[in-house]
């Protein structure tokens, strides 16, 4: 994982923005991407502990490398939820506001440097009330 996605002051000859590497995945049939630099790991979905009163897009708590992290139901965030955790479902562990958060996705697609056709999620605003 390099910081390909987040180089604000990278010395570029022309004004074109540097290509952003994306980890892409499908949620409810649509391909979305998040910058590789923010992705810690893509893992199988482990047991998720439900938390009472949690908003619908917050699936619960799970452990990731010994840490407890919240699991976000991306389908619910995107108004398609709740997600059904199928055999290809994965949890994409990403960094949001100095902590790790797990994003539930239907299946992962690719690591891509071609941003077209892929909707890039704004991680910093993802957890604001949908």
């Amino acid at each position, binding site marked *: 994982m390099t910081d390909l996605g987040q180089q604000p002051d990278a010395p570029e000859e022309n004004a074109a923005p540097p290509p952003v590497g994306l980890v892409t995945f499908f949620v409810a049939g649509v391909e979305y991407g998040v910058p590789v630099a923010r992705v810690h790991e893509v893992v199988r979905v482990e047991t998720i502990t*439900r*938390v009472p009163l*949690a908003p*619908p897009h917050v699936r619960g708590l799970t452990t990731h490398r*010994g840490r*407890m992290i919240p699991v976000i139901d991306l389908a619910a965030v995107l108004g398609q939820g709740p997600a059904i955790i199928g055999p290809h479902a994965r949890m994409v562990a990403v960094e949001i506001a100095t*902590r790790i958060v797990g994003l539930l996705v239907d299946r992962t697609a690719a690591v891509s440097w071609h941003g077209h056709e892929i909707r890039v999620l704004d991680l910093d605003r993802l*957890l604001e009330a949908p």
Partner: protein
Amino acid sequence: VVTSEHGQGARFRLRVPAVIAVQRALLVACGVELYALPFTAVIEAFRLPRSVRTGRVAWRGAELPLVSLADEVGAAAEPVDPITCVVVERGDQPLAVEVDGLAGQQDLLVKPLDEVFRRPRGVSGAAVLADGRVVLVIDPNGIGRDGRAVAGQAA
């Protein structure tokens, strides 16, 4: 944080939290879910036939209010018989908490819930069990108050 310089050795700097909140907890089963009750609050646990489950329970010459943990946390629990009653200490009066069964005790490193959760009143935090599962730690002072203090949602 590790810093090293060639030929100069390495320096390891560790950040250690000032307080590590390790709590001994009684694990209780609630349907397929597990919850933890802080051991310091637990007075006694006993079984009762389901038939006497009437909202109050006689205990040491007093009548205690009986609340179902499954109802409080909105868990889908199959009715079991006999039920298990855990008497917990609470500010004013002890409270009898109905659970499906006991599941042992463990020392837990309890951490507060992430801000994405709406800090339910009856939950003081969460901890990772030895087997890697996450349990919620129940705050006895937050349950059994004006209706369903913790849950509200039944989904």
